[in-house]
């Protein structure tokens, strides 16, 4: 009994608490009105900043003032708003008020509370995708509102099988997170893993979907992002159809895609809008760019520090001439230039666009030429570093391009210690790490390892859409076929 009493006390106290706390906020308002017909007094309680006052003024208040109603239950009949709830549970009051509901109380009916939805949605208008811009194709990008984003996706997949399940993450931020998948297509195990992990998240506040990326990742200590984030609704619709899962986080214009593979980070969505040969060529260029960007300076350092013999005589002549007056060893020279590029990138990213451009020009031209003229770096290395930086920016996904920029530093270090041997050794570490990585428990390196020849159709190359009749086998979807390839258009024989 004593325990029960104490719980009751606590409950009561808590009950009082919320009123006291709410009244501290200046934007919490309570106003009372009297119905003209019955002379019943009723009150409106709400956060003026969370609700749309127009809805109350135009839809809720006039019928309540002018039409006859005796109990709170009658409100449902006379107020022309769909979302009206009558509750007796006092614990829900706080949550409802903070979600933009107006609470209506009546002096004659003190046990019940009516809640009328009057949320004010401040939505940014749709804009063009900035990071994943494409010349051809849709120009819509996600915004910060979960409702708006869901709308963009549902418009593209108007089927009842598209399921959206909502979670609340963050003890303080109460961020809404929606998990989307297509029922009967997406692997159930994957969906369950995502739900499980979302439920297990213990954190106070979520500011962006990047938080969710880190919290959902299989290995959060990895340099590599294990969930793909995109700002393109068309891309999300396409991957949902492929059998993957999309995660929308309220307040973030980036929707997450899981599970993902390494190759996916190097495919721009524009690839699907171009002719397949051209798209495949671009993809190959990007893959080449990655290797070039990571390896070019380390190879320069290794060759000039240890393996002069590796370089043919003619080329060595050019290298030696450009390095003749340089007092620094190759590693310092390389680090100096790499850091300069990093500084330029970082300064450019922190400054407003217009100033940033100026910095780019000043940095690129002035510092580059000046450091060569001052005899700090060689011309050849300057070209390599600049090309390497350029190559790293060809990666379509921003987070991955950051990873590639960082990756070259361990390679540089190993190149200095063991030359070519160190570069290959570092490459071994990288391979081992990538092999160990998983995204929602699915191998990150698929379809290269485990080797799935059929999945290769959409990896380093993009084959024609008609040929991609199967969904990626690594996802273990419930329906492995996208469409019936036999019924699809097939080539006629000669003279048919």
């Amino acid at each position: 009994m004593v325990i029960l009493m104490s719980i009751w006390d606590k409950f009561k106290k808590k009950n009082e608490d919320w009123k006291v706390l709410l009244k501290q906020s200046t934007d919490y308002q309570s106003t009372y009105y009297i119905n003209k017909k019955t002379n019943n007094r009723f009150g409106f309680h709400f956060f003026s900043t969370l609700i749309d006052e127009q809805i109350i003024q135009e839809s809720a208040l006039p019928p309540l003032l002018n039409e006859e109603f005796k109990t709170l239950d009658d409100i449902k009949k006379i107020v022309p708003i769909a979302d009206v709830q009558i509750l007796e549970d006092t614990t829900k009051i706080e949550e409802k008020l903070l979600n933009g509901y107006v609470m209506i109380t009546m002096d004659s009916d003190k046990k019940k509370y009516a809640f009328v939805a009057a949320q004010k949605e401040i939505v940014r208008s749709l804009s063009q995708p900035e990071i994943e811009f494409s010349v051809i194709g849709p120009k819509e990008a996600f915004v910060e509102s979960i409702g708006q984003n869901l709308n963009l996706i549902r418009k593209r997949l108007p089927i009842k099988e598209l399921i959206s399940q909502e979670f609340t993450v963050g003890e303080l931020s109460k961020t809404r997170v929606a998990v989307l998948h297509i029922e009967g297509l997406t692997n159930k195990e994957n969906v369950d893993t995502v739900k499980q992990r979302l439920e297990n998240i213990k954190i106070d506040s979520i500011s962006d979907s990047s938080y969710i990326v880190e919290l959902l990742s299989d290995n959060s200590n990895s340099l590599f992002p294990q969930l793909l984030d995109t700002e393109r609704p068309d891309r999300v619709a396409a991957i949902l159809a492929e059998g993957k899962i999309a995660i929308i986080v309220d307040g973030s214009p980036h929707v997450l895609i899981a599970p993902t593979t390494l190759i996916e980070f190097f495919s721009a969505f524009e690839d699907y809008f171009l002719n397949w040969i051209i798209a495949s060529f671009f993809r190959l260029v990007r893959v080449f760019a990655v290797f070039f960007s990571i390896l070019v300076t380390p190879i320069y350092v290794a060759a000039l520090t240890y393996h002069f013999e590796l370089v043919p005589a003619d080329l060595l002549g050019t290298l030696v001439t450009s390095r003749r007056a340089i007092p620094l060893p190759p590693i310092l020279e390389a680090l100096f230039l790499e850091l300069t590029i990093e500084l330029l990138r970082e300064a450019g990213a922190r400054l407003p666009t217009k100033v940033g451009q100026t910095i780019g020009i000043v940095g690129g031209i002035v510092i580059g030429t000046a450091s060569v003229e001052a005899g700090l770096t060689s011309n050849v290395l300057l070209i390599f570093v600049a090309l390497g930086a350029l190559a790293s920016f060809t990666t379509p996904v921003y987070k991955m391009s950051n990873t590639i920029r960082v990756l070259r530093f361990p390679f540089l270090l190993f190149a200095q210690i063991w030359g070519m041997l160190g570069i290959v050794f570092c490459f071994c570490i990288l391979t081992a790490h990538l092999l160990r990585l998983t995204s929602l428990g699915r191998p990150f390196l698929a379809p290269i390892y485990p080797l799935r020849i059929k999945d290769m159709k959409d990896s380093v190359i993009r084959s024609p859409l008609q040929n991609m009749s199967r969904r990626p086998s690594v996802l273990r979807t419930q329906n492995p076929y996208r469409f019936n390839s036999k019924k699809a258009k097939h080539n006629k024989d000669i003279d048919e």
Partner: protein
Amino acid sequence: MDSHVVPETSKVSPFLLFYIIISIQIGVGVLGYQRVIAEHAGYDGWISILITGIAVHIVMWMMFKMAETTDGDIIKVHQYVIGNIAGKIISFLLIIYFMLYILVILLNYIQVIQIWMFPDLSTFWYTLAFMALCTYVVFGGFRTVVGVSFFGMVLPAYLLITLVFTFRYSNFTQILPILDHSLIDLLTASYHMSLTFVGFEIILFVYPFIKEPQKSKKWAHLAVLVTTLFYTFLAILTFAYFSEGQLQKTVWATLSMWQIVQLPFVERFEYIAVANWNLIILPNICLSLWVASRLIKRTIHLKQRKGTVIIAAIIPLITLLFKTGEQVQKLSEITQKITFGFVFVYIPLLFIATMIAKRVKKQ
């Protein structure tokens, strides 16, 4: 939990045995086996390679038969034949066998590096770094180890293409006349070839980790066929490129052949080849380390993580004992005898014993 029950999630597809076997067979031996066989069988050496290849197929058939009979790895075979305790003691000795394997590969490879690229490379530090990398791989589980074997085979495959450069300077009539050496010569060369071929005995250890192991048989045999043909092809190419007298003075024939490769931006291609050999060595060491640590787990029930760390820590310390090339040479010779004894003598004997035990148990 019973330590020999393998969860379904850590098993791999049967065709992956193809990569496992190829990647563990091809190691440092490839860099210079041609001289050794030519020493005994002259330019008929390629026939010896084929003989060894056939012997390997036979032993492999025996191993599969044993594994099927007991439905498990070599420890189960031992228990089946000679009982629990004695079986475990012999299995424990195999840990040393695999450690020796790791040691010989690493020491030989580092010797190649020291001779060709870095005379002052520290054996200890390089071994330590390499073992740390392998520990990282083994910690990822068997699937990661197999993944490394896959990449260890696929990525360096381009090196093979570069050997095309030697064609212009090759004279294939040098291998004629065929069969001008006695059978004894050929068999001696085959014996010396065996060190380059071993590694495939790993089947007896990874067998429980393969889904539907019945289907893996054809992949295993295909793998041995591929390596046999690869060795033969490379040997013929070498014999056509070098004259017999020149080959006797070339310790690392394969590497010397790469010296002829010339690209507009690379002069000494063998540097790249030696550095790339890292990728070929990696699966060798990772698989051996995995097997050794698994053996520790199976025999003395120490956690595989601990076992891996212990072995990875011991190996660099042992390398401190080897200071000269002759010592490494000596170790390699001893290892050759041991591996030959294990693969071509012990395993056939064990096979016979298993078959007898099977008969006896049936009755």
